């Protein structure tokens, strides 16, 4: 099992989620975060003083997926989240998932996903 974390543009969430659903991949966690990368910030103003907001709203998706599905899911996210412009985000994959338990049933391992 692996933990796949993707930071994407908020406006792309619907598309990514749609694509994941079509793939039969349902379990995920979504966190609204603010990110900072190579993308430059937004200039806002308040009563004439301008300021740069360099933390941009992003959405973080976290999925626990079977090893066998990592590649497929990675590809689907890459396709559905991409606009080609700076700020599209990143995918991080972590491979040390020691255990997964479904709280409702107590089931463990891949069948708990």
């Amino acid at each position, binding site marked *: 099992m692996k933990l796949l974390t993707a930071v994407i543009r*908020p*406006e*792309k*969430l*619907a*598309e990514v*989620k*749609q694509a994941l*659903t079509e793939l039969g991949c349902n379990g995920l966690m*979504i966190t*609204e975060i603010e990110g900072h990368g190579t993308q430059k910030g*937004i*200039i*806002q*103003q*308040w009563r004439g003083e*301008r300021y740069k907001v360099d933390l941009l*709203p992003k959405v973080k998706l976290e999925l626990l997926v079977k090893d066998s599905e990592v590649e497929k899911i990675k590809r689907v996210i890459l396709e559905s989240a*991409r*606009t*080609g*412009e700076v700020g599209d985000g990143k995918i991080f994959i972590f491979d040390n998932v020691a255990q997964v338990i479904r709280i409702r049933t107590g089931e463990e391992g891949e069948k708990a996903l």
Partner: protein
Amino acid sequence: METKVVMDTIWVLIAAMLVFFMNLGFAMVESGFARAKNAVNILSKNFIVFAVSSLGFLFLGFGLMFGDGNSIFGTNGLFFLGGADNSPATGAAYQGVYSALSWAGVPLMAKFFFQLVFAGTAATIVSGAVAERIKYKSFIVFSFFLTMLIYPVVGHWIWGGGWLYQNGMFDFAGSTVVHSVGGWAALAGVLLLGPRFGKYTANGKIVPIPGHNLSLATLGTLVLWFGWFGFNPGSTMAANPEAISHIVVTTNTAAAAAVLSTTLASWLLFGKPDLGMTLNGGLAGLVAITAACAFVSVGSSLLIGLIAGVLVVVSVVAFDRLKIDDPVGALSVHLVNGIFGTLAVGLFAQDGLTGVATGNGLLFGGGTGLLVAQLMGVVSVGAFVFSAALLVWAALKMTMGIRVSLREEIEGLDRGEHGNEAYPDFLTRKPAYSFNVLSGVAVPQQASQALNKGGVRL
């Protein structure tokens, strides 16, 4: 005599202040029904539109509407209230160029201010329907045209002694003059703008886009209801005790009835009572009774309200099916019920109820005469306002553009048009893009591709 002038002026000015206060109601209803990312834009529009109306109506609108002239528009005292006028003298004693208002025994400035706040209302109605995608600049320019030219001309026809007035049309407080005019102008804008991005999917499904703050929307609706007690009873422009008391009660009864019928209808149709719909329902009842409030009995006002409440439900659903995207329900409230209210005079009027010789409506044995006059008013005003507004919108579209770029629309007009945020301390999400509709995709493929190419204008 002098005493009467004082009392009438107090009444007219206070009523006008209440109508002014409706600007707050509109601002809160419209921003509450839109998304947080566009709140600054909508608040800005609703705030500036009254300033625009104030100057536009002062500069030219009032003269065009009430100046003596032909049966189409005023030609005297056009600019800056510049004509002769010996108000508060009335009737035969009146000498001046605004004789269409010579029946009202208050100073010219009181007449002007009262009429001004009505003009402002018409302009505000447009704001909601075109929300969440229109360019701020273009909206401002359109508002000038509406309050300086389109609204005054129609006003002249009906309240300025023009051809519809002569034709026997009655519109006591403006179901047509104010609400339908606003509605038709909005419809033209909505059609030229097209729906908001993401509102309809590629395969034709409707994607609901919930408003960001129902507390504000409720607040706004109650403020509007409150303001309507200036709008309708104030339109007597005289503190006639029987008339104003009667109008207060018909106005309130229609609104209350509409709230209940909308709630019931939405409960039956959708399974649960929908607050946004109920709020629209109350306003629908108020719009519908506006033309008839002085001409119908309390019982009739109850009926008018009940019908208006159902009408708004049907109409909101219908516009959505027709893919006419009106974020706040302005068309259903102001246009549809403005028309219904105007026709209701032809159905429910009872001659001389508060002293006005309207003749009886169809349901009170007066035959179809009044109804036909009302219908003619509805049709001709619709034809004129819709085409005139379409012309202005189209001209704006071709010159300065009327729609923000797709990128701006998605990121929110607050960022693109204003560089402001309405709620910087709060963590917000972008709901329109995280909903999956019951079937179909929220984000149509072609639109999404357009986005990827970076801000293509629809």
